């Protein structure tokens, strides 16, 4: 153990070494354990928790954010980040609101939401892959820009009066207690899993995140892949915008304010390295469930939302700090 840690200190750390690989595998197990504990804790703490319809309601807490988190996971694994996702929701929702005002039907509204998401993603992608801006700064800028445009259009106003058929995407149920949002989240998660872990494209993303120079030399079109990832994140934000707008039935420019941080928290909690190069979709999905359950359970106990955010913040730091502390204690014991 001690020689291994000395070796690790001397060599250039490779994020995909087997020790870390094992650690990541157990990461999902740890998260799952946390999930089960919270589930049992909640069912003991509140008699209203174990009701299928209440649990179904709880899924609305995280499905929209979770869908963005899936795409954000790809981006963070590739070593980039997109802080403008919530602003894209605001802009897409505003565009849909304006279109609904003009009498566009549900299908048209969805198309507009997806299109605005794609356009915003493309704009981010161009700034980062063509102009060469660091993604964190570029997307802080576009975050103000996109939401700023929503404010310019709407001011302190509000768009209401969406067509009745549009409500399905945020309020409809596919079967029994399974909402359209939840079903869409699960399907997209399976799709994301296959794309990331079973395809050449997915391997390319890990390669870029670990060493983009090496990836370039091995023939991966780094810029193009990154551009596609920003498009994907934009599209995911567009999907979330459709669901959220449909669920709320109204649009204000402050819609989804602060969601970017919750989405990043979800991804990091899911075991994706913020430095890029490692992570799994399963982890992100479990993290989405964990965050949703925590918020829902605390809500049943009448804990205010902002206090829940303390738990989320502590969880984010604790979940990253614990393995480091444990490893250090173990190493000290072995030495």
């Amino acid at each position, binding site marked *: 153990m001690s020689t291994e840690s000395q070796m690790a200190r001397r060599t250039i750390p490779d994020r995909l070494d087997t020790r870390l690989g094992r650690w990541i595998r157990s990461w999902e197990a740890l998260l799952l354990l946390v999930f089960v504990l919270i589930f049992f804790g909640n069912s003991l703490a509140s008699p209203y928790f174990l009701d299928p319809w209440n649990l179904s309601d709880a899924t609305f807490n995280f499905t929209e954010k979770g869908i963005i988190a899936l795409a954000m996971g790809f981006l963070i694994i590739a070593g980039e980040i997109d802080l403008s996702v919530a602003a894209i929701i605001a802009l897409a929702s505003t565009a849909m609101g304006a279109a609904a005002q003009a009498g566009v039907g549900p299908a048209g509204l969805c198309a507009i939401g997806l299109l605005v998401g794609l356009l915003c993603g493309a704009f981010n992608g161009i700034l980062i892959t063509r102009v060469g801006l660091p993604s964190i700064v570029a997307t802080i800028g576009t975050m*103000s820009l996109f939401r700023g445009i929503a404010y310019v259009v709407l001011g302190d106003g509000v768009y209401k009066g969406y067509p009745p058929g549009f409500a399905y995407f945020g309020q409809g149920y596919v079967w029994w207690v399974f909402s359209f949002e939840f079903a869409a989240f699960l399907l997209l998660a399976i799709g994301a899993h296959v794309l990331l872990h079973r395809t050449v494209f997915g391997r390319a993303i890990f390669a870029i995140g670990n060493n983009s120079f090496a990836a370039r030399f091995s023939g991966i079109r780094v810029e193009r892949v990154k551009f596609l990832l920003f498009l994907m994140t934009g599209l995911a934000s567009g999907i979330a915008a459709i669901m959220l707008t449909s669920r709320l039935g109204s649009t204000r420019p402050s819609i989804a304010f602060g969601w970017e*941080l919750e989405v990043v928290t979800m991804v990091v909690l899911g075991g994706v390295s913020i430095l890029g190069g490692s992570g799994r979709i399963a982890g992100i999905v479990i993290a989405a469930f964990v965050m949703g359950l925590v918020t829902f359970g605390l809500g049943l106990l009448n804990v205010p939302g902002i206090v829940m955010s303390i738990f989320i913040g502590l969880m984010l*730091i604790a979940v990253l700090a614990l393995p480091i502390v444990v490893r250090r204690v173990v190493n000290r014991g072995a030495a």
Partner: protein
Amino acid sequence: MSAKSILAQRETLLVVAILLLLAAITIRFPGFAAPANLANVFNDAAILIILALGQMAVILTRSIDLSVAANLALTGMAVAMVNDASPETPLALAILLSAGLGLALGAINGLLIWKLDIPPIVVTLGTLTIYRGLAFVLSGGQWVNAHEMTPDFLNLPRHVLLGLPILSWIAVAIIGLAVVILGQTKLGRSLYAVGGNPVAAVYAGIDVGRTRFYAFCLSGLLAGISGYLWVARYAVAYVDIAGGFELDVIAACVIGGISIAGGIGSVGGAVLGALFLGIIKNALPVVNVSPFWQMAISGAVIVAAVTINVRSERVKGRLILRPAVAAP
């Protein structure tokens, strides 16, 4: 030397941009460029300048502090509640409390980053929600209103001294200190060295983690002082004060030419960046543009500013690889 001339260019560029902006506003509204009004604009930008200088120290070390606004809200709330609960507390003690609390919160960030090696963006993302949440727990969601705070407490930043309010003088003093610390001290040089090349900094005998820790302490300290200044200036304390202000602070730095990749930036740049945002904020209502434009404009300005910065920072050597990638 060449890096220095680029820096000089960038600041000149920013000064020219600010002058053009002022000229454009003055055409629409001649009173804007009057010295008294400009002093007002400076005073309005004072807190942004103070926070941008703290953020700059952090960004120089290749880190980022997203928790400054939450730190400001928590320290502001704490100091307002102390003043409300025991008005007889000396003002100096209250200010010391806000500075100390801010420093402690910054040190927590710094320790997590230094001792546990967690990336700064994640740590401060976490403490951002924790600190603001604590402001809620502390206050129970209640507001501290103007009539609950003592006049002395509220009036200090407004007190005019030699033609400028004390708030402006505090900003001037902190700018002066920042120039000295960054340019003349070992700590200042270490900040640049750590961000410029962390590996080389280690070989030069600089403790990278410790230097980052100091940067976060500095940022926290300034956020704490700003907490008191904000609450006193706006005469109210509630959980959501300065919500999202951390992005304005980072924007000021970015506009001022402080490289997010670390190691590049100057006090003058940070101050000018903050002033640029401050002027836009002040000018919009004056020239009859809806304040709702402000967010979109500052977003566009950030994107434009980073684009200009990146163009001038680009390392020529890397271009060798470009054609291979660009080929279809």
